[in-house]
């Protein structure tokens, strides 16, 4: 297990500054966060798998931005905000009625919590908040069927009722980057309620360790002996929104209590490369410790490290069979064969 404190001690040795006379912990932390973003951006190795229940579960629904600071856990922004009067409203006729007596027909119910969409015909789309560190989608499926990305404008151009249409999900779109949301199109026509998920306070806790009814189950097998064992989690994709995505690395927080937590988003063998990039920044900063020669040395180490990771990624394809065109040749014989050593003589 590697923690930020371990890494900090190691870097302070190379900085020859164990008492923080030049670079304090906070400065190194900021450089670390910058450095890991650079490495992640250049190698793109951090991929995560998540399975979300549908409808998604949130602890709190809120209407106003100021409410965010008063809540804890996962939150969902419900209803609509009318910027003209800074008011929250349910139905589109409400802003119109405020100015004059207009009556815009509406398409369905409004909901405060996403689970309500399972009990009526919602009049608006359901935005599903993605993982906080979601960066780029690699693959997305709903109920074990692949769904493809489309721009909202493309969907709107071909379907006037795309906001309320229900049926088999074929596509998804991302309404805006800031919200980090995803919307399924059409809205799932049927919902299979997973009772186990109601017991969870937070959808992210679906990666529990015991329940086999939840999204992810965990099991430790009899092979787990000394260092030849294997522990694995399984991801349940049935009736769930499943995605593989590139993720941004989690930041080391300002709170020093978290500095003894494991840095789990990087494999431990890549953490030294983040340290090299951090040291490069420390020696390159405009402080009394500015030493160009050492900055260049650690930059060289960083570059070699990045090349090493790239080579490592290429080697992951060692077992691939490549062929230009045509169908893959059968590895196994097409003809029936008796087992080796048969008949016994």
């Amino acid at each position, binding site marked *: 297990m590697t923690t930020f404190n371990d890494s900090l001690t190691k870097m302070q040795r190379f900085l020859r500054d164990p008492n923080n006379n030049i670079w304090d912990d906070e400065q190194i932390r900021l450089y670390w966060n910058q450095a890991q973003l650079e490495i992640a951006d250049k190698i793109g190795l951090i991929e995560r798998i998540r399975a979300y229940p549908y409808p998604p579960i949130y602890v709190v629904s809120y209407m106003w931005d100021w409410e965010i600071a008063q809540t804890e856990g996962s939150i969902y922004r419900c209803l609509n905000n009318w910027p003209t009067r800074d008011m929250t409203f349910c139905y589109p006729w409400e802003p119109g009625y405020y100015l004059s007596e207009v009556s815009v027909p509406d398409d369905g119910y409004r909901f405060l919590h996403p689970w309500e969409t399972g009990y009526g015909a919602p009049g608006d789309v359901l935005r599903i908040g993605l993982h906080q560190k979601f960066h780029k989608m690699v693959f997305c499926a709903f109920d074990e*069927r692949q769904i493809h990305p489309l721009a909202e404008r493309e969907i709107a151009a071909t379907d006037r009722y795309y906001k309320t249409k229900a049926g088999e999900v074929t596509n998804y779109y991302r309404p805006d980057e800031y919200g980090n949301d995803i919307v399924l199109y059409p809205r799932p026509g049927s919902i299979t309620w997973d009772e186990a998920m109601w017991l969870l306070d937070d959808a992210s806790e679906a990666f529990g360790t015991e329940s086999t009814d939840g999204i992810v189950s965990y099991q430790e097998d009899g092979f787990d002996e000394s260092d030849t064992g294997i522990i694995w989690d399984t991801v349940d994709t049935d009736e769930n929104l499943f995605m593989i995505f590139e993720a941004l690395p989690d930041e080391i927080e300002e709170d020093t209590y978290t500095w003894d937590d494991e840095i789990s988003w990087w494999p431990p063998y890549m953490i030294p490369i983040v340290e090299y990039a951090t040291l490069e920044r420390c020696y390159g900063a405009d402080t009394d410790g500015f030493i160009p020669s050492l900055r260049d040395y650690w930059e060289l*180490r960083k570059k070699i490290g990045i090349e090493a990771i790239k080579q*490592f990624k290429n080697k992951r394809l*060692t077992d691939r069979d490549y062929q230009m065109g045509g169908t893959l040749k059968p*590895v196994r014989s097409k003809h029936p064969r008796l087992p080796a050593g048969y008949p016994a003589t």
Partner: protein
Amino acid sequence: MNDLEKETLKLIGEDTDSPDVFSDDATGLALIRGSINDAIKQICMVTGSYKKKYFLPLREDCQFYRMNWEGDYFGYIVQAWDRLRHTKLEQTDVIKLNVEDPWWMQRNGYPEQYFHVGYQYLGIYMKPSASDNVIELDCVVIPKAYSSDTDPVKLREAFRRATVQLAVSEYYASTGNAERATSWLNLSLQTAGLKTLHPEAQEQRFQFGGYRPYATARINRSDNL
């Protein structure tokens, strides 16, 4: 202190019998030990020279497996073998699966292909219909850091010299001598000669044209003759 640490200390001018700065304990050797451990990890990562065999019991209807290893760090798979059917699983990826079989997540059957996702996930196609199979995985792994004199150092002999040189390089960097640090770094890279020293480089079979010589294909051909 182990042989690698002794050699490193000698190269930086430390008396290993009566150490002046780097005392023979965990605290005294922390800098050198850390550098050696990092060097081992990086060399194993690049060369893929350290492998282990792991057994993955498949579970009914489960397609994705997150692999947490107790011993070493999982790198990647070089061969996946179906113990039940005595057959090799082909490596693939999500994009290829989407093209070949858009319903790949719904298929149940014998495992035929596998794919990596990120650095700790493994996907199996097709997902098993019963929990009755074990996949044997030949994996490149990165050794965990050793922490005492008696812990084994999991590194090929050919890379030991380069590891020591990398540790010496980091020592000079820690003293502020960037010039000597860079010089030792270059020497280490030269000594490692990663491509030519790769253990499997001389053990491959090359063929121009025709089919790749799978053992089964050759046996069948001779049977027909």
